[in-house]
């Protein structure tokens, strides 16, 4: 691993919540397994640990005062499709208790790898035999003046969601900063709440890291047709107070000179791995915590999974952060197997996303923007809001994007990860990429 960076982040995000667990854990209790972070990756780890080790003690630490929940479900909470309990990762009562997994609400402040001890914000600590870090990501707050004001929120935690629900009333003027993947998910939720929405994206299109210019522009037109103001290639330069207006208390300045009054500003300017607590841990980190194919960090007793882990990429083996749900749960399962002593290499993660933007569904997989020397199949129907682009490397599919198609898209993953040789089907796909399911059945299932 060349060019390793050791990066230290200031401990500036979020307020540490001092909540004592009702079960009151004795200080410096020793656990066979300690997992830090109660998101999808952490929960996947603990469940798989229990599946593979019926006996070992397991502690799951989470720093939010909620049962383990899914950030991905927050948009559906915003539109009222589910209540707060609907965001919980596991729906059964006493799920963790039944599995003999101890849950504790505490914030980790540091790790002493030599002592195999995790320090907690209440001053106590726990000791581990195996540690897994699943501390996820934190939203980025860009250096734009005025983002520290009231009514400026991320949309990351349940707490954020509660603020947004309070403010995003029908007809409210809302400015959304960022039309990346998370921005777009929130966009849908905000639009469905009936707010008067303006989206401001620095990139030249929507979801620039998931879709190419054709697809990203399709999404933009789709949103505009549905009454959402979308500004691409535009920056927010400042958020100012708007004195004398009790409804729209904020004024959002754009670099094109426009000023938009806002009742609420939602910041979705990307996320970064949450590494704040690792200053003294001595772990190798780059964008995230660097892990090998066993999802082990530079310390043999410490693993890292999910959004915080920078692990092997499926296509080329590079170390990458793929902050997506399927990677989180795959990581969780593989790390757990290795932690219990069943050595299991990970074949690497692949970028894949699915996005519903006001009913227009788009997906992207793997090397959607192609690989050097590869070739592609493209089909577009701008008026019909349909688009499909497949990327090949020789006989193999390595990446894909679709807009307006949902049926059987999973086989794109199957074809890519199965490294399926397409044979004559490659030419057929180049003529009509929508034969992807046929190609899969013909090549992978015979």
């Amino acid at each position: 691993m060349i060019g390793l960076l050791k990066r230290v982040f200031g401990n500036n995000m979020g307020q540490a919540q001092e909540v004592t667990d009702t079960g009151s854990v004795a200080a410096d209790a020793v656990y066979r397994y300690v997992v830090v972070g109660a998101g999808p990756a952490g929960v996947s780890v603990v469940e798989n640990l229990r599946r593979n080790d019926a006996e070992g003690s397991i502690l799951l630490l989470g720093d939010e005062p909620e049962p383990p929940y899914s950030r991905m479900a927050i948009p559906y909470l915003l539109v009222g499709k589910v209540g707060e309990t609907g965001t919980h990762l596991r729906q059964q009562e006493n799920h963790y208790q039944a599995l003999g997994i101890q849950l504790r609400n505490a914030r980790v402040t540091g790790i002493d790898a030599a002592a195999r001890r995790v320090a907690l914000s209440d001053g106590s600590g726990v000791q581990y035999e195996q540690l897994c870090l699943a501390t996820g990501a934190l939203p980025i707050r860009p250096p734009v003046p005025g983002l520290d004001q009231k009514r400026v929120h991320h949309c990351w935690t349940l707490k954020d969601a509660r603020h947004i629900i309070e403010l995003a009333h029908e007809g409210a003027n809302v400015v959304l900063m960022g039309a990346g993947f998370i921005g777009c998910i929130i966009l849908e939720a905000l639009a469905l709440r009936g707010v008067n929405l303006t989206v401001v994206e620095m990139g030249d299109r929507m979801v620039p890291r998931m879709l190419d210019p054709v697809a990203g522009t399709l999404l933009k037109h789709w949103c505009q047709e549905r009454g959402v103001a979308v500004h691409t290639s535009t920056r927010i330069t400042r958020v100012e107070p708007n004195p004398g207006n009790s409804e729209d208390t904020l004024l959002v300045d754009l670099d094109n000179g426009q000023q938009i009054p806002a009742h609420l500003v939602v910041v979705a300017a990307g996320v970064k791995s949450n590494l704040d607590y690792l200053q003294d841990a001595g772990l190798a980190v780059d964008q995230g915590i660097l892990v090998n194919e066993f999802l082990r960090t530079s310390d043999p007793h410490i693993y890292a999974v999910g959004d915080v882990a920078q692990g092997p990429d499926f296509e080329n083996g590079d170390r990458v952060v793929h902050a997506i749900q399927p990677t989180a749960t795959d990581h969780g399962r593989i790390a757990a197997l290795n932690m219990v002593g069943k050595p299991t290499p990970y074949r690497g993660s692949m970028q894949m996303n699915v996005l519903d933007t006001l009913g227009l569904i788009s997906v992207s997989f793997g090397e959607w923007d192609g690989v050097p020397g590869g070739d592609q199949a493209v089909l577009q129907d701008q008026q019909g809001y349909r688009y499909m682009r497949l990327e090949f490397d020789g006989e193999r599919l390595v990446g894909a994007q679709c807009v307006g198609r949902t049926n059987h898209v999973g086989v794109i993953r199957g074809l890519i990860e199965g490294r399926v040789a397409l044979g004559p089907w490659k030419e057929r796909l180049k003529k009509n990429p929508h034969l992807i399911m046929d190609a899969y059945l013909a090549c992978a299932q015979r």
Partner: protein
Amino acid sequence: MGWARKLLRVNLTAGTCTTEALNMEWAHQFLGSRGLAAKYLVEEIDPKVDPLAPENKLIMATGPLTGTSASTAGRYTVTTKGELTGAIACSNSGGFFGNEMKNAGWDMIIFEGKSPKPVYLLLQNEQAQLVDAAEFWGQSVWDTEEGIKAKHQDPLIRVASIGKAGEEGCKFACIVNDMDRAAGRSGVGTVMGSKNLKAVAIRGNLGVKVDNVEQFLEAVKAGKAVLAGNPVTGVGLPTYGTQVLMNVINEIGALPTNNHQEVQFARANDISGEAMHAVRKDGTKNLVTNAACFGCTIACQRVSKIERSHFTVKDRPQYQVASGGLEYENAWALGANTGVNDLEAITFANFICNEQGMDPITLGATISAAMEMFEAGAITTKETGGIELRFGNAEALVQITELTAKGEGFGREIGLGSKRLCEKYGHIDMHMGVKGQEFPAYDSRGIQGMGLTYATSNRGACHLRSYTVASEVLGIPEKTDPLETTGKAGLVKAFQDATAAVDASGLCIFTTFAWSMEDIAPQVNGACEGDWTVESMLEMGERIWNMERQFNLAAGFTGADDTLPKRILKDAAKTGPAKGKVNELGKMLPEYYQLRGWNAEGVPTGDTLERLGLA
């Protein structure tokens, strides 16, 4: 329910698509598909209209069972005034298009007028639009279907289209859906082409509902058990398809050969269902598999591949794929009737019919007539462009088929159909058909009832209006003597009425090898409101028959057109069990008129019309 209760009216002249409620009073009188579409046609067009004039209309219609789980319930029909015949035309097709139309929420689409430029209809549930078809005009059915699916990025779109033949005005162009299922006869594709309508592309997911789910499912289940247990629908048709008939019909001396000059074909076995199963030199078989249309538990369809080294497909990979293979009628028309015994060549000619949208029966029959005229010297290589158009010449069959599909050379003349062609070359006696439409694969000198069937069919010579072969040859529902005329008038009328009712329901007529109306009526009754009994179904069928008849009478046909060519009436069969026989139509027709409640001129009486609610 059963019905979607909605029709789409597409005015091609104005470029508009409008939704109308289905006339439910008519639906209860004529059920759907063939019946209900005929009712709309009769109400909306002048029977004397030129079939290719914008004033003619073209109706695509489903039946109330179309799209349900009843076995074979995927049929749709195309009803119009036929270009080949000038009579009412109703061509019936399977595949999956009919179900898609129903699932999109439509019982029927009425096309009227003529588009100023080639267009296709794109219909996605309630959303209908006419789309410029410039990029598809001139393309085959196969390319059009694939092209439309790719263009709209939806492999589940179902397409019915015309090929080159329909564009070029071939008088027997058909409308092909799902690559090789066709509304085949009477030139319905020619009418579609005259309207500059290239294709109809449909995607629907609204679903089909039935009136009484439990009752319906029970009747459907019982019906399927009957089909599975019947030797014809349970074994014969799935194994050999309709091609099970080739040797059978040849043996009874009713296989028209060399344009009906003979009634037996010495090489019939070479082009039979059995031959399709035989292992070829390269170790493969002509028959790849049998296949089913939507919801069909019989699966009679043939899927064939031509031997790669055969002269027809060598170096032509686009024809080395599987496509709809030979059904009995096609194998006969392109084979026995042209004297060609090359199974692969016949299969190829049939592929071209699939690809460019031609009726293989009329094509084969017209080529046969041309061959007879060629051998008689009325047509020479000067006209044919050097093609030796002789009986038994497989290369000539293939060449002329391709030319006809494209409307080139002598193919343009073949495209007239045999009646116009024979008239043109002074040999109307060599036209083997009725009301301008060529006979299918049964010589009525050997199967007497089929003579009456052909003579009285409302769409010109046709086996699918009263398939008395079932009784006279296969013994279904009971065996009658094919060489006898006694009782055939009643048999034909009963078959005609029952067939019209089945066609109106959305089911496939092939079910009636096993099903009687006792099996069918409960399925219709479960799906539809109203009281659908055996009696009401049969009366409904009779009502349809008489309405079609009245259209034809108004169009200018008379009882004098209920006849057969001289060859069938005067020239005795030369070989086989029917040796020495002609068709004795004269013995059957008066009785038939009487049973129908028609006068001696073949016109329905006032009482008959009154009784059927057609007055």
